[in-house]
């Protein structure tokens, strides 16, 4: 029986000056790199496949398979790009990881770059987290000075340069192809796929784009092996996961537990609901994942469990709201966010989010009409699956799931007004 919490990625966070190379090396840091550089790159890709590691940025794509898509012997430069543009509402795991333990990410970057034969890697961090950027920069400098980066790393003949790249405030750049455009110095707008980044990514060369938590997991898999990684979590979603609890909970924070842990278990560890006010709704993985309610407390939070219950695991950003919060208001606020962050490239998302905000704001003002719910769902239907990228799909999640579980609250906003109209015409 595995313990309820399994600190792997978060373990060093308690150590003094955990962000320094000195602390990192005292706590097994860079031992996985030494081991990995003695292996064949294809063995590392195979090990990652065997471990069952799936992307921690939301989509859950098998990491080893992604690495395996990079064509080898193609004569082109290969690139590794770290998606550190953490901005999905509710998500707050990568920033603390990079602040507390930046070397674990850097070690993962070096091993991954060696595996996919990349000699240049970029960490694309959202710009608003200066302290995190500062720590990453210092860690990269330390790694160069210690011979972990640069030419002929640890005498292996392998070269790697890493750059820390600060974004400039655009949620859409968390979408991997928008991120690549942004990293190329352009507006962050998603690209048409195919071609996928594995064949034409950064500078039109084969590129792996992975999330911070994914790549920070790699050194542990190298040291512990694929079977060890699979001792945690579930068959199709193995490993530990950082669950971020926020909102109306007694002790919010970062809890690293095996994949498949439930909100009931997490809430129990976090002291339950704040002031004992009952749970009303929550997101399993950020605002783009359809809402859950108190009915879903026992859903195993892994990729399959969340999907089977009608949502998505996303980034395991558990935003927890109690009975005092109005669902239409919360949905309106999220929709304002998506409208602001829509990049404007495709019509369904650009126009759709604009009109969704207009309708929701009017409803929340108490001026809803009887047709509003149908109009909202109709607009959502024209965005879902019809947008250029997943931002549009994410934008409709809170609305459709909010109406699904809390239709009465939306109806109340409409009814109120229809009564006024009825009275006015009497």
């Amino acid at each position, binding site marked *: 029986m*595995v313990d*309820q919490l*399994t*600190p792997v990625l978060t*373990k060093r*966070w*308690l150590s003094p000056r*955990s962000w320094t190379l000195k602390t990192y090396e005292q706590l097994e840091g860079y031992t996985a790199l030494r081991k990995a550089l003695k*292996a064949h790159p*294809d*063995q590392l890709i*195979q090990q990652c496949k*065997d471990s069952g590691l799936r992307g921690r940025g939301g989509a859950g794509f098998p990491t080893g398979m992604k690495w395996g898509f990079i064509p080898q012997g193609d004569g082109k430069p290969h690139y590794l790009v770290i998606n550190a543009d953490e*901005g999905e*509402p*509710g*998500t*707050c795991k990568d920033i*603390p990881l990079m*602040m*507390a333990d930046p070397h674990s990410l850097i070690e993962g970057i070096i091993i991954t770059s060696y595996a996919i034969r990349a000699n240049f890697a970029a960490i694309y961090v959202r*710009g*608003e*987290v*200066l302290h995190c*950027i*500062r720590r990453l*920069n210092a860690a990269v400098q330390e790694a160069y000075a210690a011979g972990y980066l640069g030419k002929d790393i640890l005498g292996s003949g392998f070269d790697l340069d890493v750059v820390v*790249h*600060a974004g*400039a*405030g*655009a949620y859409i750049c968390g979408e991997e192809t928008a991120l690549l455009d*942004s990293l190329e*110095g352009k*507006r962050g707008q998603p690209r048409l796929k195919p071609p996928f980044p594995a064949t034409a990514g950064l*500078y039109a060369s084969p590129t792996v784009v992975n999330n911070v938590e994914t790549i920070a997991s790699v050194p542990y898999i190298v040291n*512990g*092996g694929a*079977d*060890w990684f699979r*001792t*945690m979590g579930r068959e199709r979603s193995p490993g530990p996961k950082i*669950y*971020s609890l*926020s909102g109306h909970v007694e002790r*919010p*924070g*970062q*809890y*690293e537990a095996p994949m498949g842990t439930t909100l009931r278990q997490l809430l129990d*560890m*976090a002291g339950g609901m704040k002031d004992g006010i009952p749970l009303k709704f929550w997101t399993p993985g950020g605002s783009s994942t359809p809402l859950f309610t108190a009915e879903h407390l026992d859903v195993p939070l892994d990729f399959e469990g969340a999907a089977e219950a009608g949502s998505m695991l996303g980034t395991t*950003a558990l*935003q927890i*709201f109690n009975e005092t*919060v109005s669902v239409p208001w919360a949905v309106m606020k*999220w929709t304002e*966010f998506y409208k602001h962050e829509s*990049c404007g490239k495709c019509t369904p998302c650009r126009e759709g989010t604009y009109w969704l905000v207009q309708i929701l704001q009017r409803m929340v003002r108490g001026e809803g009409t009887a047709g509003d719910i149908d109009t909202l769902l109709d607009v959502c239907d024209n965005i879902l699956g019809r947008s250029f990228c997943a931002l549009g799909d994410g934008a409709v999640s809170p609305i459709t799931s909010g109406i699904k579980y809390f239709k009465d609250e939306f109806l109340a906003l409409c009814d109120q007004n229809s009564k006024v109209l009825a009275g006015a015409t009497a």
Partner: protein
Amino acid sequence: MTQTQEPTHDYADVFGQDTVDRARAIIARYPYARSALLPMLHLVQSVEGYVSQNGIAFCADQLDLSHAEVSAVATFYTMYKRRPCGEHLVSVCTNTLCAALGGDAIYAKLREHLGADGKPLGHEQTSGEPGEPGSITLEHAECLAACDLGPVLQVNYEFFDNQTPEKALELVKALQAGEKPHPTRGAPLTDFRQAELQLAGFFEGREADLDGPSAAPETVRGAALAADRGWTAPAMPDDAEFPPLPEKK
């Protein structure tokens, strides 16, 4: 394509040799020069406190781009400001979760306090003369990735966690009075322009900033609880081996 149609900008008195050197250092970080554009826009903001027409011309010249190409990028991203910013930029998260916990009330309180003539200060507006001591630009921000610490706000992109309208008001009054309260997580405050210089990737002389606090009690709650209860991840085997080299198909 020739660039002769561009209006000429004489920005030499704004962006001196040190800025040119820094722009070149940014370009040298990347395999292709254009990747330097985002950091370079942070760099011009560190000089002028916003992206001016001169700033756009400077980036265009450094990267051999047209002014339109640079403008298109500068106007896309929230962090590039089109009007001069105050000494400090105060960003209040008003996304759903922070808002429900008090973020909307914090923003309303600060708007009211920083407003003038009975009018609350608007989004991205500045109280005081931009750049002068005590001047403050206020904005509402989208999710700042610190939800376990909400409601949060930032000053020059350093975190002030677990805020209330009262605490936020006290903080802003202190900033106006020329004080620099220490962030909950982050380095000692400087000003908006110096923060932008660091975002462009220049940290010289600021090594001590690294020691600014980062892990709040919330950050390490799970790790601390596990340590307290004796919970750990399963032990790693001593001799985990790599799988055999896959055969080439």
